[in-house]
């Protein structure tokens, strides 16, 4: 990266680009993580709700627990970008 011919503008632009890539990775990868985690819980919760409707609240609760992961990713991304 440390090319001698790079001007300051170019360095700054590439830094901004790197930040954007980092932010994208933060949201994307945590999103995948959340999805993988919710996959099993969601399927089990729907099964349980099919058996007993009263389970809806608890099922929803369990299903959204991994949401936190992607929220952390989103927070990091926002802090990176702004």
């Amino acid at each position, binding site marked *: 990266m440390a090319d001698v011919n790079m001007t300051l503008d170019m360095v700054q632009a590439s830094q901004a680009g790197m930040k954007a890539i980092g932010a994208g990775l933060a949201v994307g990868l945590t999103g995948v993580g959340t999805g993988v985690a919710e996959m099993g819980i969601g399927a089990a919760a729907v099964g349980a709700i099919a058996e007993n409707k009263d389970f*809806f609240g608890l099922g*929803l609760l369990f299903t*959204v627990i991994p949401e936190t992961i992607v*929220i*952390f990713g*989103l927070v990091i991304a*926002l*802090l990176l970008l*702004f």
Partner: protein
Amino acid sequence: MLAPKPMSRVLIVASRDQAVPIIQELYRGHLFHIEDYVEQGREGYEGFKIGTPLEGATEASAELIKVRAIENVFAIRGEDIEAKEKLGQPQIRSQIEKDLPGIEKEVEELAGARSKLDTKSKEYEQKIAELAPFLEIPVDLALLRGFRQFSVLAGFVNRDVSLTVPHEMQVVKGKDRSFVLAIVPEKNRTETERLFQDAQFQAVTIPEENGTAMARTAYYTEQIAALKKEIDAINTKLAKIKESHTDLLVACEEAFRVKIEQAEAPLRFATTSKVFVAEGWVPADRANGISEALDRATGGKVFVTELPVDPLHDAVPVEYNNPSFAKPAQMLMDIYSRPMYTEVDPTLMLAIVFPLFFGLILGDVGYGLLLLIMCFALRRVFKGDEAREFLVVLRNASISSIIFGILFSEFLGFELPWAPIIFSRHLNIGGAEAAGQGPAIAQLMVVAIWIGILHITLGRALGMINHARQDHGPHRMKAVLANFGWITVMWGIIIAIWSMFAMPLMPDLRGAPIIAAGLSVSIVLSIIFIVMGLIFIARDSVLEIVELPTIISHVLSYARLVAVGLSSVAIAMVVNYMSIGMFIGPALKNLSIVGVVLIIVGVLVFVLGHALNLALGLLGGGLHSIRLHYVEFFTKFYKGGGRKYIPFGMKRRFTED
């Protein structure tokens, strides 16, 4: 408020001949939660027995089944029907005697006839399906049966077959399989079948019909059309009956239901040959009223008394006790679990905080207005109580969304004519010059964290109250202190962070005076807080120490209030940029036919994009707000699992006493 309604345990004793007036009075009062009497079933026990139903229960049940059968035919459901006027008892009785049998008979006959016609029409359809393969065979089907010397084979094969025996064969080519009809001498039958088998032959029975398949199919189609006409005629008749008698039917159903519920009440009482005893729960402030009403109904021939209540060990039924504006939020509580009788009821807090969270996330005047309009429109569609409550919750949330939208100065992602009153959420989308100071992300994050800290501290404090109320003995103090320990550990960590870093909107303790070993006052304080908290927690349960990281993750989880909100702002601004900046704006500059098309595309992008974002915002705003309550708030203090208070009786909608 903040606690379920106080309940009294009431015992009613009377002789059996007073059962009818007492049951009727209790039913009318709609307050008495009957505690079912359970026979112990011990051998040699000669005491109370479960009572027997009152007279007329069996007849009423039979009638109810008939009425419900008719309602099923018409697909009527009592809940979906607006009650117009309530029918009085004499009126309903005369109608049950006079009109109902006639209607029942007529509907039964019509429905029977209809199902017969339906069966016949199905039969014909089946025949048409059987004839379908033979449609292209121009031979009378009667000619394909009754041979002695020959054998007729019909069926599908998946490739061409050439027979080596003398035969006559017709092939109808299909898409991926062909239909063959072959006539071979009886003695060659086995050999032919083997040849066919190689081509995966699937035999088809030859329909028992006279005439060509084409002619027969036409005949059956005609028959089905005729049957359809008859069925339509019956449907019209039924629709007429439905139109004129719906009100009567739902009223009758209600009348029979009331009768059955009353008649079966003694099954829940303890009885001897002479007296019966009913035990149950009544809201404490209504207990006197019930005993007076029963006195009046029986002319004083009843004994009513209040029994002592042990709130911890009696399974006291739970009825919410909330101011009316918080009532709809009870629905959100019931989704999680009803509070126990001894527990703090957080409905009121939920009713206030939920809309605030929703508004913080979806703070946009445009979306708020759209949701509000949607609420009022849906009120006409949904009639059930639960749906109504849900809509009220949504209405409050959308009002809060409008208020926050004014504060954030947002309208469908555009800026309103004033600068944001609280922190700005305006992002810099599409390279446009940032208006004002740009988004105040850091400040917003800190505000969200503050909300989390306070919410969780409140939750732990409520946990202390709950444990103080519910636990006994040495465990009580330990449990209360453990909850206090969680608070001190959390605040210890926060103070430690303040002592090390400066953050917007938070105290900066870096400059606190140093007292010992190079440690400042605040650091020492935070260490004391954390160690004390850890000791308190470990004294209650050592395993709980494993849960310590949740302090950080739960507080940080409140960052979603900002993060989810910002993502919806970003989508809105991107939609605006795409539709106006990319399609409509350039097209307006020099108007042409292509430009008009571009404008239409731009408007489409605008509408679809905002519709999608509204749906996402509703889902995100609602789910994340409720999740913060369920996961981060309730887990600190709330157990739930209370028994629902179901008073004997019901709200009559179509009939009167």
